[in-house]
Structure formats: structure tokens, C-alpha cells
């Protein structure tokens, strides 16, 4: 190259070719400073450590997590010499590095999305009690997926499960999950639930589930979503945006389908409660009949007693009216004409006399 004379533009182009060949993709860890977004499209910042600093450039749509000055990050990119002679790194991906930065980024994004209402309880939709067709987004090689499928198979049957195999960790994971969501939501015949699952892992492993575009995709899903990521203590923004949050993939299976053994037990309990119900009804009907009969007998006996009393009273009155009773009190019954010289018959209680009328006078 000693005898080659290059124009400035050719030199810049040659340098860039060399850089591209030597460093097609380089990872750099450092602290962000002078972070700014220009025209709502371009992102500029400096990446520094104790001794050095390098300019960085990226497009806003590539920025998947909130970044601010002072945050420790890892970038993936390629170095480039601009036509203005400035050396910078064109960033393809950026993510917080270290627990503090990851937490800080998480909190900033959570506050932003929360303010937009993405996590609002009002947006949450209910899942069907017994779904017939669902879609699962997960890695089919992951332990969390195996746990989910085992528990769903143990608990329920007759379910059509479409599985979208995606990476669930690493830089490409958010985009793969987003494509899977979009693919499923674009199907003519939609499933009733989309389940996003991944087993436990480090904060870095689970970082994909805090990707802003993924969280927005989950929130915008036409199909109700169920997200079960990590262990019970893990909390991701994907969880918060989901219609229903499961603590783990196993818990997602428990939420998704009822336990067939519970239903069998409930059905048995329902039907076995019917026979005692019938017996009870027969017993109640018999008792009621017996009571009615007893009542009828009582009423008949009362009537008989009443009639008997009335009869007795009338008999008593009748007895008083009996001529024999009057004769017994000393009175006599006279038959015949009450004229002087006539013979009359006098009946007392114990004799009948014949007598002649000797005198008749008015009283």
C-alpha cells in the first residue's frame, strides 16, 4: 500500500472495509454518557471506562430497553469511520449489564408502560374455563415447556395445542417471540389462549421478557394471553402485560385447564347426592301422608264426638217431652168427654182408672 495514493473517500472506505473484516461484530462493555435522541430517530451516546471513551450511534427502533447516562451496558456493533473523520461504533444491540443497570432499566420501562396503561387491570381479559384450542410460545427444548406439557396432559385432554418453537433467551429471543405472537394472531382461526412460558434462570436469562416491543406485542394480542416465566419470585414486564400471570410454567398449566380428577369427583358427588334426595323426598311425602291421615282420623273422631254430644242433648230434651216422664212426676192423662155423667179414663204412671164425671166447673 506504500505506493498507493488514495482519495480521502477511498481511504475512509478502505478503512471501513478493513474494520468490517476485522470486527464484523464486536461486544463492548462500558458506561453510557451524553445519551441523546435526535429527530426522534437517531440515538447518540458515548461509551466509556476509566481510561477511554468511544462514540456510539444507533437507530431508535433498535433501542429495545431504556438507557440513561451512568448505566452500565453491553453493546453489540461494528466500528466505523464516518466521512467526517469521526470514529464510532454502529450499535446493533444494547442491553444493561450488571444487576443494578438491569434493575434500573426495568424500573424505567415499567414506569413508562404503566403510565401508558399497559398493565391496567381494566385491560385484562378472562381465559375460557375449558379451552379447546390454544397456542404455546416456548422453546420445545426447555424444561419449563416439558413441565407445562406434562401437567396439561395429566390434568386435561381433548385440547389442540399448537406450539411455536422459539428461543426464550438471548438477543434474538424477543424478536422470535414477537414473530410467533404476530403469526398466531394473524391466523384465520384463532386459538382461545396464547401461552408464553419459560422456566427459571438468571436475571440476564430472563431479560428477553422485559423487552419493550415484546411487552407491547403481548398487550396488543388479539388472543388473550397467559404468561408464566421463571420461578415464583421472578417478575417480568411480559407477566404484567399478560391478561393472566402464572407464577411458573407448571402454574400456567394449572390455570389453563381444570383437573379432570376434580371434575370426575364433582360429577360423582353430584349424582350420588341424588339418591338420598329421592329417599328424603319419599320419606317426607310418606310422613306428610301419615300426618294427613292422622289429621283426617282426628277430624272424624271429633265429628263423631260432636254428633254424640248433640244426640245426647236431644235425647235428654226428648226424654223431658216423654208423657211417661210427666206421668211419673204425678200427673195423670185423662181421656173422654168432660161432661157430667160421662165415663172418663184416667191414666197415671202405674194405673189406668175409669171414673164417672160428677161435676164440671170452669177454672
Amino acid at each position, binding site marked *: 500500500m506504500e505506493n498507493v495514493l488514495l482519495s480521502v473517500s477511498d481511504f475512509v472506505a478502505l478503512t471501513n472495509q478493513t474494520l468490517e473484516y476485522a470486527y464484523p461484530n464486536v461486544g463492548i462493555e462500558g458506561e453510557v454518557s451524553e445519551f441523546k435522541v435526535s429527530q426522534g430517530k437517531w440515538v447518540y451516546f458515548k461509551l466509556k471506562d476509566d481510561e477511554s471513551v468511544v462514540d456510539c450511534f444507533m437507530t431508535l427502533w433498535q433501542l429495545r430497553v431504556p438507557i440513561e447516562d451512568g448505566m452500565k451496558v453491553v453493546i453489540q456493533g461494528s466500528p466505523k469511520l464516518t466521512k467526517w473523520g469521526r470514529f464510532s461504533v454502529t450499535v446493533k444491540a444494547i442491553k444493561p449489564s450488571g444487576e443494578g443497570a438491569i434493575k434500573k432499566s426495568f424500573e424505567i420501562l415499567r414506569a413508562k408502560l404503566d403510565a401508558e396503561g399497559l398493565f391496567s387491570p381494566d385491560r385484562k381479559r378472562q381465559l375460557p374455563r375449558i379451552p379447546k384450542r390454544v397456542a404455546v410460545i416456548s422453546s420445545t427444548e426447555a424444561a419449563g415447556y416439558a413441565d407445562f406439557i406434562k401437567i396439561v396432559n395429566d390434568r386435561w385432554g*381433548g385440547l*389442540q395445542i*399448537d*406450539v*411455536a*418453537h422459539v428461543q426464550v433467551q438471548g438477543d434474538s429471543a424477543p424478536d*422470535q417471540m414477537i414473530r410467533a405472537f404476530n403469526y398466531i394472531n394473524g391466523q384465520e382461526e384463532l386459538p382461545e389462549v396464547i401461552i408464553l412460558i419459560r422456566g427459571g434462570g438468571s436475571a440476564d436469562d430472563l431479560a428477553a421478557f422485559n423487552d419493550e416491543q415484546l411487552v407491547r406485542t403481548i398487550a396488543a394480542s388479539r388472543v388473550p394471553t397467559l404468561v408464566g416465566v421463571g420461578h415464583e419470585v421472578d417478575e417480568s414486564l411480559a407477566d404484567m402485560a399478560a391478561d393472566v400471570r402464572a407464577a411458573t410454567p407448571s402454574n400456567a398449566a394449572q390455570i389453563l385447564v381444570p383437573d379432570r380428577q376434580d371434575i370426575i369427583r364433582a360429577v360423582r358427588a353430584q349424582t350420588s347426592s341424588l339418591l338420598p334426595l*329421592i329417599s328424603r323426598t319419599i320419606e317426607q311425602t310418606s310422613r306428610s301422608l301419615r300426618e294427613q291421615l292422622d289429621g283426617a282420623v282426628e277430624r272424624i273422631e271429633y265429628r263423631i264426638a260432636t254428633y254424640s254430644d248433640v244426640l245426647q242433648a236431644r235425647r235428654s230434651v226428648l226424654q223431658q217431652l216423654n208423657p211417661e216422664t210427666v206421668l211419673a212426676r204425678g200427673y195423670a192423662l185423662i181421656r173422654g168427654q168432660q161432661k157430667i155423667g160421662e165415663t172418663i179414663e184416667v191414666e197415671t204412671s202405674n194405673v189406668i182408672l175409669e171414673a164417672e164425671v160428677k161435676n164440671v166447673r170452669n177454672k
Partner: protein
Amino acid sequence: MSGTNKNLQQKMDDLSELIAWFDGDDFALEEAIDRFKAAEKLATEIETDLSSFKNDITVLKQRFDSEA
């Protein structure tokens, strides 16, 4: 699925309806045994269905590792 062409949910609904009849105003002892037998038959069908159902799992052929 055993029995009729009704799906599990329809059978569960039918069973609930049958059982609700026993607590309702239309309850009549003359019909109770027939209804009980029908409920028991339905419960057995549901149990058989639940025990025999298998899930159908399909891994989609669609790849998501790059833009389609």
C-alpha cells in the same frame, strides 16, 4: 368420545340441568328415578370421556428465527 355427538361441555351442561331439576319446582317423585338414571348414565359418560381424552400437540413448522 363415547356416547352421542355432544361435546363434554354440552354433557356437563345437561348434567347440571338434570341435577337442578331435583331442586326445582317441577320435581315430581314419579319422574325422579328415570331422571336419576339419566344423570348417572351421563356422569359415567363424562367420566369415560375425561379419562380417555388425549391432547393433540402440534409443533408449528413455521420458523421464527428470521423475518419471513
